[in-house]
């Protein structure tokens, strides 16, 4: 106890003395020198996107702070101004939360990141032997093919491992509408999703599951996405559209933008940063390569971000002009 108090007192005293001696940091931009808080989530792609943005803002002279926050819980912080920028809100999984937040007027959508979220049913390449009609979705209607994907609990139906319930995705409805002999099992997290894929891939065992990109999985495992009838707005809203005249969702999942959002006060407090974040874009291929470099080759996020900054100076300097 006494040790603690003593250290604390000494340290505070030291800190105070030093604080008085040093001038406060100077910034290139004549805007607020408070830190802009960017949120970090728990998947690599998002860490890379956010740190790219953060490094660019630092080059422009802004003060940047990274804060770890949950993907959906962060909207509470963005609304109150405790957090300022979230770099990856996926059309496919974050749209509802984002719309609810922007509707309050306290959160602003800063436009697309340039990356496109792809989400669909996916199978490893070796499954093509057992179900040769793939990737065309109609092959799945064949009972022998569906049974190739079955487990004891679902037999004779095939087993499709969907995303967490919170992701939505309308897979139960899709199976019904397209009359697929499959049972939808929901994984609770994407970690569980990829744990199953890794397990099945090691044994060359059958598996059909929800995979999304940009992600390291399509780079690590060889396989394909099932080709469903292409998504249109009418397919989800109008039962008459598509092969099943009585049901919606008789098509694939939508491709979607990945959006950048911010606290609505960002524009007034740091107008230059607001401009730079709005201008930020990268594409899927670039991001896929960077994610693989981190998750599969074991490089650090910092190193990968630094490489990109070195190779793309012309691009990012245009954002902060």
């Amino acid at each position, binding site marked *: 106890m*006494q040790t603690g108090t*003593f*250290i604390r007192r000494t340290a505070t005293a030291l800190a105070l003395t030093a604080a008085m001696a040093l001038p406060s940091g100077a910034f290139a931009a004549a805007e607020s020198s408070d830190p802009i808080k960017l949120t970090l989530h728990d998947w690599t792609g998002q860490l890379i996107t956010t740190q790219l943005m953060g490094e660019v803002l630092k080059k422009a002279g802004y003060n940047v702070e990274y804060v770890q926050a949950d993907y959906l819980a*962060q909207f509470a912080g963005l609304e109150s101004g405790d957090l300022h920028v979230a770099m990856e809100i996926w059309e496919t999984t974050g749209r509802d*939360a984002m719309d609810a937040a922007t509707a309050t007027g306290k959160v602003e959508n800063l436009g697309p990141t340039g990356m496109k979220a792809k989400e669909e049913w996916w199978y490893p390449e070796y499954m093509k032997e057992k179900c040769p009609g793939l990737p065309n979705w109609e092959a799945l209607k064949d009972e022998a093919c569906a049974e190739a994907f079955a487990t004891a609990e679902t037999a004779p139906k095939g087993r499709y491992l969907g995303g967490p319930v919170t992701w939505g995705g309308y897979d139960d409805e899709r199976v019904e509408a397209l009359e697929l002999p499959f049972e939808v099992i929901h994984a609770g997290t994407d970690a569980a999703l990829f*744990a199953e894929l890794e*397990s099945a891939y090691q044994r060359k065992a059958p598996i059909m599951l929800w995979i999304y990109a940009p992600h390291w999985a399509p780079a690590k495992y060889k396989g394909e996405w099932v080709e469903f009838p292409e998504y249109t707005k009418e397919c989800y809203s109008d039962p008459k559209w598509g092969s099943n005249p009585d049901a919606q969702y008789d098509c694939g999942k939508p491709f979607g933008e990945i959006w950048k959002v911010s606290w609505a006060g960002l524009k007034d407090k740091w107008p230059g940063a607001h401009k730079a974040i709005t201008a930020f874009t990268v594409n899927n291929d670039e991001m896929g390569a960077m994610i693989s470099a981190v998750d599969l080759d074991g490089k650090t996020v910092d190193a990968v971000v630094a490489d990109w900054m070195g190779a793309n100076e012309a691009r990012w300097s245009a954002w902060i002009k």
Partner: protein
Amino acid sequence: MGAPAQAQNNTQPGEAEASARRRRGAVLAWGVAIAAFVVFWQFGKPLAAWAFKYPKAYAIPAQAWISSGMKWLLNEATFGLFTFLDLTRFTAAMIDIPYKLALSLLSTGFLQGQGSGAVQLLPPVSWIAVIAIVALLGWHAGGRRLALLVAGCFAFLAMFGQWDSAMVTLASILVAVPIGVVLGLLLGIVAYRWPALERAIIPLLDLMQTIPVFAYLVPILFLFGFGPTAAVVATLIYALPPMTRVTILALRQVPSEVIDLGNMVGCTPRQMTWRVMVPSAKDSLMVGVNQVIMLSLNMVIIASMIGAGGLGFDVLAALRRLDIGAGLEAGMAIVALAIALDRLSQAYAYRIAKPHHETAANKGFVARHPYTVGALAFVAVTMAIGLAVPAVQDYPDGLKVSTGPFFSDVVGWINVNFFDVLEGMKNALLLNVMVPAKRLLLDLPWFGVVVLLAFAGYRLGGWRLAATIGALSFLIAATRQWEKAMITVYLCGSSVVLAALIGIPIGVLVAERDRAWRVVQVIIDTLQTLPSFVYLMPAVMLFRVGDFTAMIAVVAYAVAPAIRYTVLGLKGVDPRLIEAGKAMGCTPWQLLSRIRLKLAFPEIMLGLNQTIMFALSMLVITALVGTRDLGQEVYIALTKADTGRGLVAGLAVAFIGIIADRLISAGARRVRQSLGLA
């Protein structure tokens, strides 16, 4: 006094006859109740459909009430001078001060400015100095062995490259634990001094411990802002109740002679509390401190989801990229921290319990505080050297070790070679036991179950208990959580049965073998503090997503109290009774079944009770592998930031826990009475 008297009573002929009559009556009453229930279940559906599915029109809109109540708190609630939100934000700012300080000391160093514009004025305490300080603490508290153990735990953190994250976690623990201890203590004293308040506080503590953390995470984020402070608040809610419980218990156990003495020398109530009661209850209170530390460490993963960072974040991130080895290393780092802090706090508890007299009043400062001076000297010296030699300040990268892909390879090997065997076992259990149990539970009429539970409450504890249990189970149905609640009961129930089947025999086996018990203790300590996420993902690889995997995770966590309390109960059996049994020529089996297990029964029941609580607290984690129970409902509500939905489901979990707790406690009390133990 009571025990022998009762035993004598039981042997009187009239008494024995009366007790046999009572037993027959009980069997008859139960038989009638269950028969009525089965008849109603089988034939009642056409007559009373409402009893099978709660009618929507009569549902209690608790979700909407809670959500609008929350809105009111956030936007309108005010105390005149300041709003409710101002109050909570102020609280958050107050918690932030010590947190920032601890973080600066241990992790970031003292900074000028914020964010990337910050300049480091003073580096954090170096890794060598931290290890030296904890070793000195260990020495001070428990001698050389403890010093070595604690230093070893911290060296493990450095060697496995977990230092930076571990210090972030340690900083939040160092803030949460003292606040939790002080608040818990105050609440306990309040409850002790004003029994009327105690009746209000105890149910509140029950709720705090049984509502899943995810359920109140959203309101906490709104009220306390985003970041480590909110995580500390969430940790407090979860970790504080045992401190209060222990305080109440400890104060009650203060010998009446001590209180009399206090009265005689004319203590004021305040002096009585702080000078007499609290000091003499000190060693029991340390048990509460220990519990607060352990539960705070349990919260590390969840706290990291709302911005606490640290080891919890590393575990989550590693498992998201399926790096099992890295996840395990970060998880073991949490265990190492837990062991170090646990052993330190226990040693201090022991030290306080054994007062020692020092005659150091007239010695110099150094002589009086050798440990403090030693620690400070170390900090100063390493800081000075650290400026010149970076390896002293930060653990050198080159010396870090890692298990690398070893554990991923092990899991992969098991997966490739043994999957079919595991799959066969799993399917047999799933198709023959678990799935039928689930169907059965889902089929039962809610009304019948409510009545039957109330009946059980009446038989075991009288009308009051019957009313409590009936009301709680009715509320689950009335808020339309019944179906999910039944899946919860099925998942937790089958896990508890399995945990008891594994835990009680292990407890019996090791209770008399001290060395084996020490080994088992280390294993269950590890299982309790290792974040379950670490073994959840390998379990998914081997058993796929689904109820079975969830059950494994629950059993792994909930088996600990089943073992612990069995051992506690068996060790507590009066050795004279065992001697008596031996003298009468009992075989070892008879000794076990007729004497030891019977007398340990109340403790074993208490263990079962705790097993159920532990199983319920794992629900939220198992939601991460795709169960469809109340835990999943809470999780969905969290991701949708829906306060009402989350809290209603969370309360339903709490109600299940409270119902089980009350019934088991009442049952155990009756058994204890009939054994003449109470």
